[in-house]
């Protein structure tokens, strides 16, 4: 099997007191073994929700998930509670955005890593600690033996995120989910963590799904990219193609609002006017149309069908004319 993750027609709906929230609609994703997929989009576009669905981390009685999710040959939506928690952390692991909050403050970091290893491999505490030490070395934490006995608040932000990665990788997962792992870090640490993730991915041969709102980060780590807007994927394809020749007006807008190396200091960054849509109703037209510079009347009609080529996909009815219409010189 070449695809380690296959998501088909995924819809996630949350039931709240104010009605249903259609957080994710009709998402299709494929991830080949050893590759990295970046989910790119702004806050509320459904990227984190999509990723958490892969592990079914949403509160079950408030969430409705339809479609199909296959991870490492298993149908995630059909798993029982027991099999589900056996799979989490073992086959598919997650790195959280805020490493301070993702560690339990009352336990030592080493013990928390050991706990996961003991849970999945049924080994002794000592073996778990040995693995924790080995993982701390893998993620280049200085004097790892000492850090095993540190509490989360005794570490710096970058080191905590490294420890978080150590924890996620402790059981050699085949798929790693990273939920904006660099957002809470400052710029110099960000790049170190990105490079580390890439290095470890190569070393362990895992596949990775990387959620980010930072175009630069996506370009840095990803092989494939999926741009999300309003709970749908609006554009999808290999990262170098999408980033050099974006088809969808939203992707074009994102790129137009990004700084890049060697850019002319006089260039104005173009912002996308308006705000992302509320998802309290099922959006059946192009969600981006109200903000789109190319929108015409027919854009407010039914949902644009995906325009599909071999490797790429984009949802825009005006695609032929719009594609390549970057707001400024190409990246």
């Amino acid at each position, binding site marked *: 099997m070449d695809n380690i993750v296959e998501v088909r027609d995924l819809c996630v709906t949350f039931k709240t007191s104010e009605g249903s929230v259609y957080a994710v609609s009709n998402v299709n994703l494929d991830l080949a073994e050893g590759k990295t997929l970046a989910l790119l989009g702004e806050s509320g576009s459904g990227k984190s929700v999509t990723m958490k669905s892969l592990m079914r981390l949403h509160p079950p009685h408030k969430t409705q998930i339809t479609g199909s999710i296959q991870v490492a040959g298993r149908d995630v939506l059909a798993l029982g509670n027991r099999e589900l928690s056996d799979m*989490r*952390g073992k086959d598919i692991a997650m790195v959280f955005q805020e490493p301070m909050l993702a560690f339990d*403050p009352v336990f030592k970091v080493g013990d928390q890593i050991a706990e996961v290893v003991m849970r999945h491999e049924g080994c002794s505490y000592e073996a778990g600690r040995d693995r924790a030490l*080995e993982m701390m070395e893998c993620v280049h934490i200085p004097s790892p*033996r000492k850090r095993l006995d540190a509490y989360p608040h005794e570490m710096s932000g970058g080191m905590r995120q490294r420890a978080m990665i150590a924890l996620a990788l402790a059981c050699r997962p085949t798929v790693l989910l990273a939920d904006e792992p660099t957002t809470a870090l400052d710029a110099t640490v960000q790049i170190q963590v990105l490079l580390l993730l890439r290095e470890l991915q190569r070393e362990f041969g895992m596949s990775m799904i990387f959620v980010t709102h930072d175009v630069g980060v996506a370009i840095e780590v990803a092989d494939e990219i999926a741009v999300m807007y309003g709970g749908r994927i609006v554009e999808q394809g290999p990262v170098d193609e999408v980033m050099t020749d974006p088809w969808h007006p939203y992707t074009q807008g994102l790129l137009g609002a990004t700084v890049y190396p060697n850019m002319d200091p006089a260039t104005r960054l173009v912002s996308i006017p308006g705000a992302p849509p509320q998802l309290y109703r099922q959006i059946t037209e192009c969600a981006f149309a109200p903000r789109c510079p190319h929108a015409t009347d027919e854009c407010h009609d039914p949902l644009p069908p995906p325009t599909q080529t071999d490797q790429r996909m984009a949802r825009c009815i005006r695609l032929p004319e719009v594609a390549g219409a970057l707001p400024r010189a190409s990246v």
Partner: protein
Amino acid sequence: MQTTPKSANALKAADGGKIATKSRGYWATVWLSLSRDPISIVCASILVLLVLIAILAPAIAPYSPSQGAMVDRLLPIGSPGHPLGTDELGRDMLTRLMYGGRMSLLMGILPVFVAFAIGTSLGLMAGFFGGWVNTLVMRTTDVFFAFPAVLLAIAISGALGPGLGNSMFALTLVFIPPIARVAESVTTRVRLLDFVDAARASGANSLTIVRVHVFNNVMGVVFIYATSLVSVCMILAAGLSFLGLGVKPPTAEWGLMLNTLRQSIYVQPWVSVLPGFMIFTTSLCFNLLSDGLRGAMDLKR
């Protein structure tokens, strides 16, 4: 992939002996920080002393707690043979205070301890599972909150009749709701933190999450709260005995002693306030110790 012994050894060599300091465990850290606080140390020492005296009372008390001599009634503090004087029936006050400590400490600590166990479990359940479990538990505790603690204790032990067991039961019942409420509110907050999601994402089931992650984060807060309740409980227990709802005479108990010595307050005021002084000292020590503990258990400070 397992760590081979070889690589582990290589690691030890690389780390050298320098970083061999295994960092302290949680309780060791708490203890260290507590031992640097002079107030906590003084309070803890007084409490340990009181507990020791109470346990050893039969061995070290100079007289029998229930036998007195009518000729020696209400001797002042500092009388020969009776350093703290005698009560209205001529019994030695020092002896009575030692024995009284057994009852008073027992009635102060045991109900809170039992209420701590039950209240924390209820609060954890209510907070973690939410929904109708939460509604059921928390609304039931609300009913108890409708009455002031003192009134509730008096009502329950009054309904059950006087006696040690009954008054302890009443006190336990009084302290379950506040402990459950504190545990519930902390649990609700902890449950929504990222590390609960992170634990779930690493394969922990609900039971493990409650037992390990939520419990250990809730424990500290509730424990501190419960220590502060011990003093309240002692005063309530003394109050029940004072009203004749707790232990029965001639058992020595500080609250009861305060009651029976009440009539002698114009004859021997200093002897009469001794039991009250003991209650005051003990509850103050528990309060200050719980304060010190709160500071010490806050690891981030």
